[in-house]
C-alpha cells in the first residue's frame, strides 16, 4: 500500500556505500520479489518476516519451492524463452551451482557485507552462501539400545558390523544420482579421511531413497534404524520435534557442511529488491532469522540461540572435523563414475 511504499528507509550500516539509498529507493517501485528455491516455507518464513519488517514496501515476497534441479531448469527454460519472473535462485544442491556458474547467469553485484563474512561466503561468482547446513544422520531411539546410538558414520559402521543380520537393510541413505544426494555422498567421501572405507562398510546395509521425507518417515516407523546424509535443515528439526523418538548426530569423524546458496540472476525483474534481500540475508540480522527458520548461520558475529551456528559446530567437533563443501560443476562422466563406484560399494 501507499503507506508501506512511503515508509521511512531504515538506516543502513555505516560500512554500506553511500549510493545504497538509491537501491532502496528504486526497490520501492519494484514492490515484489520472487525466489525459486528448494527450501521449505518454514525455513523461509522468519527470514521473510524480518525482511519485510525492515523494508515494509516489499511485503510481496514469495518463494516458489521446486525440486532441486527444477529450480535451475525452470529458470533456464524461462530465460531461454525470453523472460523469467524469478529474481533469486536458492538451492542447497551443490553441483548444480557449478553448472549455473558456467552459464554466467548471476547478476554482477558485490554485496557490502562481503568484508564481514568468511572469504568463501561468495562460493562462486555471484553465488552467495545463505546457511551452512551440516550433513547429519538420524536414528530411532526406540528400536536401538542406547549403546547403538551412533555419533557418526564410522561409529555407525562399527555398530552395524557387530550384528550384520540385525541391521541388514536398516540404513536409509540419500541416493547419489540426484543433486543433493550426490553432494552429500561425494562430500563425505572426498573430504573425510577414510570416507570410502566407511562407505564400503556401511553401504551394504543401506537402501537408497530419493527424498528426505521418505528417509525421515522410515526411521520414524522403525523400518530403518538410521538414515544418513540428510540435510541438517531437515534432520535436526525432525529429531527435535519427535518427542524423543529420534536422535540425531553430526559425524564425529568429520561433518560435511553443505552450503545453501542463493544468487540474484541477471535477468531479475526486480534487481534492487533482490539486492536488498541478498544483503539482508548476509547481515547479522538476516543470519539470525535464518537460524530461526531452522538453518545453520555462519556469520561470525551473528547473535542467536535457535541453532548451532557454524562456529558452534566447529567448537564442538573441532575445526578440522568440519568440512565445507565447495560446489563445482560435475561433468556427467565424473558423476557416472562416482555413482558406479558407490553402487559397487553398496554391492
Amino acid at each position: 500500500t501507499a503507506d508501506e511504499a512511503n515508509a521511512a528507509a531504515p538506516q543502513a550500516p555505516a560500512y554500506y556505500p553511500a549510493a545504497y539509498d538509491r537501491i532502496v529507493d528504486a526497490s520501492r517501485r519494484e514492490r515484489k520479489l520472487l525466489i525459486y528455491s528448494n527450501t521449505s516455507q518454514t525455513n523461509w518464513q522468519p527470514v521473510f518476516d524480518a525482511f519485510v519488517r525492515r523494508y515494509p514496501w516489499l511485503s510481496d515476497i514469495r518463494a516458489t519451492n521446486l525440486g532441486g534441479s527444477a529450480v535451475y531448469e525452470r529458470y533456464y527454460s524461462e530465460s531461454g524463452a525470453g523472460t523469467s519472473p524469478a529474481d533469486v535462485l536458492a538451492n542447497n544442491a551443490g553441483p548444480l551451482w557449478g553448472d549455473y556458474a558456467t552459464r554466467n547467469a548471476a547478476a554482477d553485484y558485490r554485496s557490502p557485507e562481503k568484508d564481514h563474512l568468511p572469504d568463501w561466503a561468495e562460493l562462486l561468482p555471484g553465488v552467495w552462501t545463505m546457511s551452512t547446513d551440516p550433513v547429519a544422520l538420524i536414528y530411532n531411539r526406540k528400536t536401538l539400545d542406547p549403546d547403538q546410538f551412533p555419533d557418526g558414520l564410522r561409529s555407525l559402521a562399527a555398530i552395524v558390523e557387530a550384528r550384520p543380520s540385525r541391521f541388514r537393510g536398516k540404513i536409509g541413505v540419500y541416493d547419489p544420482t540426484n543433486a543433493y544426494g550426490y553432494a552429500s555422498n561425494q562430500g563425505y567421501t572426498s573430504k573425510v579421511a577414510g570416507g570410502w572405507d566407511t562407505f564400503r562398510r556401511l553401504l551394504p546395509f543401506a537402501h537408497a531413497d530419493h527424498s528426505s521425507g521418505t528417509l525421515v518417515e522410515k526411521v520414524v516407523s522403525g523400518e530403518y534404524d538410521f538414515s544418513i546424509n540428510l540435510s541438517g535443515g531437515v534432520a535436526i528439526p525432525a529429531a527435535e520435534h519427535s518427542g524423543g523418538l529420534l536422535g540425531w548426530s553430526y559425524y564425529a569423524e568429520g561433518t560435511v557442511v553443505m552450503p545453501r546458496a542463493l544468487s540474484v540472476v541477471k535477468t531479475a525483474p526486480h534487481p534492487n529488491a533482490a539486492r536488498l534481500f541478498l544483503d539482508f540475508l548476509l547481515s547479522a540480522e538476516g543470519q539470525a532469522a535464518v537460524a530461526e527458520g531452522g538453518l545453520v548461520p555462519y556469520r561470525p558475529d551473528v547473535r542467536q540461540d535457535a541453532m548451532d551456528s557454524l562456529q558452534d559446530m566447529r567448537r564442538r567437533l573441532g575445526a578440522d572435523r568440519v568440512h565445507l563443501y565447495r560446489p563445482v560443476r560435475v561433468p556427467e562422466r565424473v558423476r557416472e563414475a562416482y555413482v558406479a563406484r558407490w553402487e559397487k560399494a553398496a554391492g
Partner: protein
Amino acid sequence: MAIQTPPAPPAPSRIPRAGELGTPQYRRLFGAGREVTIHWLTFLVTAVLVLAPVVPILYQSVRNQPLYAAGGAFTLSNYTHLFTSAGFGSIVLDTLLFAVLTTVFALAIAVPMAILLERTRFPAARLFGQVLRWPIYISPLVLAFGWIVVYGPAGFLTSAVREGFGWVPWNLYSLPGMAFVEAVAQVPIAYLFCANALAASDTSLENAARSVGAGPLRVLRSVVVPMLRPPMLYAGLLIFGTAIETLSIPLILGEPAGITLFSNFLYEQGIDSINPDYGLLGAASTFMLLTTIALVVFQTRLLGHAQRFVSVRGKATRSDLLDIGAWKWLGFAFVGLYVVFGALLPMLALILRAFTSLLTPLVNPFDLLTLDNFRLIFDYAPYTESIVNSITVAFVGAVAVTLFGTVVVLVARRSDFRFARLLETTAQSPHAVPGLIVGIGLFWAFTWIPGGDAVRGTLFALIIAFGIRALPSAYGAISPATMQLGAELDNAARVAGADWWRTVSRIMLRLLVPAMLASFLLIWTQMIREYAPAMFLAGAESQVIGTTAIDLWTQGETGSVAALATLQIAVTAVVAGLAGLLLKGKKHA
C-alpha cells in the same frame, strides 16, 4: 343415449394444418448447419490442446540440446540412447508387467464391487459405494505413504501380524505389492465407470435371463458383465496408462526393492538428475504416446458394433435389483475386506498421521496428538493460498473438462463428423504422457504461441495443463454411457425438429448427467492432487496443493503432507456429496 363403437372423437379444437407450424429454424454458420461449426470447432480445439504439449516434446525428441539452449541440431541419438540404455528391456518388461497387474487387480476388484453394490440387494450399498472411492481423493504419493505406515516392513499391521504369526504373507516392496497399491488408487475409476453403466442397465435383459432359468450368478456372467465391456475397456485403458505414467509408487515403493520402472527411470535420468536429459525425455514420451495410440486403436476395434451395448432404448423398461441370496454374504465379505483393509486402513493411518506429531508402531499415537501439522499449513499464506488455488483449478477445470469432454464424445460417437475416429483417438492420447513432460511441453507451447506468455504461470495455464491430462478421463467416463443410449433416442429428436446441437442439449446431455457427474468427480480428484505439470507452469501466485505437498514432503514435513491430504479428502467428500445430491435430485425430478 347410446354408447357407440367406435365412439365419436371428442369435439375437435382447432389443430394446426399439416406443416403449418413449420420446421424450426436454426442459425446457419458458414452456409451449413451450426453443428458443422461445432464439430470442427471441437475437433480443432481438441487437436490444439493435445498437440500443444506434444509438438514441443516431439521436437525435443529429435534435438540434441534442451530447447532453451541456443544452438543444437537434429539427431536421432535420443532414441538410440533410450533404446540402448542399460536394462532398458527389463525396465519395459517390468513396466508392462506392473501395468498389466495393476489393470487386472483394479478391474478384478472394481467390477465385482460395482455389480454387487449397484445391481444386487446389498447391505449398506450406498455407504460402501462412497467409502471405496476415497483412495482417489488423494494423490498416490500420499496413499503410498499410508500403505507404508500400515503394510510396510515396519507398518502397524505388518508388525502386528509378524508378532502374532511370526511371518508376514505380503511384501509391499515388490512388483505385485506396488501393483496392488496402484490398483487400489485406480479402483474408484473402474468402479465409477461400471457403476454408472450398471445404473443405466436394462433390467428386462436380466429378467429375460432369469426367466429362461439363469440363476443370479449366471445372469451376472452372461448378461451383466458382457454388457459392461465398454466401461471396463475404457477404465482398463485409463488405468493401464496411469500405471505406466505414475511416478510416486515406483519411486516410493519400487526404489527400496531396486525395481526400476519406466517412470522412475525417466525421473532419475531425465528430471532429477544433475544434468537433465531432455532429449531422452522427449524420446521416451513419444514412445509412450505411440503406445497409447496403439491401445486406443485396439480398444476401438474391441468396441465395434456399439449397438451391442445399448441398454436405454425407446421401449422403456422398469428396473429392479437382483437378489443373489446367500452369495450376498460372500460378496459382503469381499467388499468389506477390501474397503476396510484396502481403502480405509491406509486412509485412517494418513488421517491419524495428520493429527499426530509422529506415527509409528513404536509409540502410542494417542500420546502424540497435535494440531501442529494443520497449523503449519494455515500459518503460511502461500500454503493456504495453494489450497484455494487447487479448489479453484479443480472446480473450474472439472466443470470445463467434463462439459468439453462430453461434447467431444458426442461429436466422436453421435455425429456424422468426418474425422470422428481421429477425434476419439486424439482425445484419449495424452493420457500416458508423464505430467511433468506435459508441463514442459506446454511451457514451450506458451512460449511459441503469440500471447502465451501472458498465460504462463497463471491458474489458467494450470487449468489447461491439468485439463489436457484429464481429457482422457472425461472421455472414458462419458463414452461408455453414450454407447448405452439407443440411436432411436437421438433420431426421434432429430425427426421432431431438433438439430444436432439441440438433440445433444435436450436429450443426450440430460441422459448423460450421471456420467458427467462421475466425470466431474474423477477430474476433480485428479486435478486437486495433480502437481507434475505445475512444476514448470505454476507461478508464485498459482501454487497448488500438489506442489505444496511436494514442497512439504521434500522437507520431511510428512505430518503436514498428511494434514493436506486430510483436508483434500474433506473438501472432496463434501463436493462428492453435493454431486451425489444433485444426481439424486435429477433422478426424482
